[in-house]
């Protein structure tokens, strides 16, 4: 079976999240190209609807990157982001879908390793679990 190309979306906050991703890139860190970033002003903007819709639209996994919870630019935004992710995880679990496919990561803008680490964790999840439609092609 040809190896499945992971399709992963990252909802990245415009403050510490994207700065961490940029710092990683500018420090020369390389990471898997299967991750595509959608920037949002704050990880608290992310709605469970976006996460689930991403999975429905073809993503094998989705992750959210926000500021560290005690250092969120918008005070409580990444706390909210984590709550959204956790709720989606519980819905997926109930539906018999692996909850590892949705994840939340927190980072400081100064951490050049955080983003590539998040990417490799999610790529590993997809490699292990495969695409959602096990039959291969979407219906």
């Amino acid at each position, binding site marked *: 079976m040809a190896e499945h190309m992971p*399709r992963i*979306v990252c909802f990245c906050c415009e*403050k510490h999240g*994207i700065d961490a*991703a*940029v710092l*990683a*890139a*500018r420090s*020369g*860190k*390389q*990471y898997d*190209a*299967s991750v*595509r*970033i*959608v920037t*949002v*002003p*704050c990880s*608290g*903007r*992310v*709605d469970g*609807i*976006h996460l689930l*819709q*991403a999975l*429905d*639209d*073809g*993503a094998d996994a989705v992750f959210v990157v926000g500021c560290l919870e005690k*250092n*969120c*630019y*918008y*005070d*409580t*935004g990444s706390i*909210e982001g984590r709550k*959204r992710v956790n709720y989606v995880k519980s819905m997926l679990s109930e539906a018999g879908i692996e909850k590892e496919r949705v994840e939340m990561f927190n980072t400081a803008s100064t951490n050049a390793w955080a983003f*590539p680490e998040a990417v490799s964790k999610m790529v590993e999840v997809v490699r292990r679990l495969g695409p959602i439609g096990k039959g291969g092609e*979407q219906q």
Partner: protein
Amino acid sequence: MKAAIQVVLCKCCTEMPALLDMAMLEKIASETPMVMSVKTVDAICDGKNLSEIIREVKEREIDRAVVLACQKKDISPALFKAYTRAGINEFMIELVDIRDQVVLPHQDDRAQAQAKAEAKLEAALARVVMLAPLVRSVEEMKTRNVVIVGAGFAGMAAAQAAAKTGAHTILLESSGKTVKAPGVILTHSKVLGAKGYGGNFQLSIKAGEKVEELGAAAVVIASGGGWTKLKGPLAKACKEAVPLYELYLSIKSGNQIKGPVIVVDTPDPAGKTLRVQDYAWDESLETVIDLKRRSPETLIYVVFQEMRAFGLSELAYKDAAELGVKFIRYDKAGAPRIDPNLPGVLTVKDFSQGEKLSIKFGTLAFASIPANPDNMTIADALRIPMTAEGGIRRGSVQRGPVSTPRPGVYVCGSAMFPKPREVAQAEGQAAGAMAGEYVMKGSIEFGGSVAQVTAEKCSACLTCVRTCPYEAPFIGTASKAEIKTQLCQGCGMCVGICPSKAIELHHYTDDQIAEETRVLLGGDL
């Protein structure tokens, strides 16, 4: 949907073409409907091709642009300024950071990088079509008043700093003490309530016996801590214990201090939460050194859990020890106690030696500045968060060490948590300067990418009101939620949480995010 899109591809000198097929990107751009202009430049920052870019904007009546380059903070502002002059609204420019998201991190995977770059271009084009021009509004500040609550160390420093910027300072001091500071000084005064927002507050204050209205452009909270009493069993046994600052003042006024003197680091040594604050060490050391120098024969004991003097104040620890001050360390198991039947004797277990010590004392002082009970009124009035200990909570540290989540409201000194005098003064200076700068702008800017409620969809569930850290949502006269635009920070937390999807965040609507995501994923289905 009518749009005229211009696509600008920046080569970032040679970085982009080294990895990506620029011709392919140009092709995709030009073949996308409503793209009227495609320009590839060597380096936007260079500004060389700017006039050509703008010429096409005018000729082809471009109303929006997709720019593939790097991060906004790194691109020369020249392009955006030129776009603005040419009439393109700042919110109609979609900047895609191809450099940091595709070129730099995927150097070894040309095919994947190309696919990703193409997907990002297509997603940006899909998104830019959905964007709408947004206008930021300006509101004049009705006053240049910086109202400073509290005329202690922090408050006075704040008044000085704010006055330097040209702002008009008004100090509200709750006690009747004499205050010398620039601006208007109102003693026996407190804040009771507040309406409005940063730039245009209407405060309700108590000045003496009267309740008055006071306009303010900014508020600095320097309400400090209050005196306190000993807590717990120690309090019952020793009624004459004094707060450290009182002892300090007493020494300064030249009073005879009855020795031996014991200084304890907290008012509640046996308490469940042994929170000893930084203030305790610096001030304790300073006080005991002063006393020992004035009357070397007085026995002085410092009873503490940890000695953590700030920076160079560590030297004070050395000085005090050399002067003959005795330091006794304890932990919770051997916390200082006084037997009510034997007042005047403090027993404590020396942590280092393990010995139980009994110390006769003439004066017992304890380091403490707990939260000012007025802080609750102030926090309620200005709708800002409090700490668990009753102080005023700072906003996100990234907004500055003296800011609250409310624009125009600053907090400094022990109102946050107990601080040594110098630190309180430094913070006061910072808060005063920031408040003054804010006020002297003369107006506030707001709007743009902010949240907006569609009343018909609102269930008035109060979720947004409770979630927003900035107090922007409120239930309006129609019994539906509304967003106070002047307070909205554009984070979108309320949008993500609204159970009826009644709130949208301009520039990051659900549809815009969903479409961008869909196209990024390859858009099948």
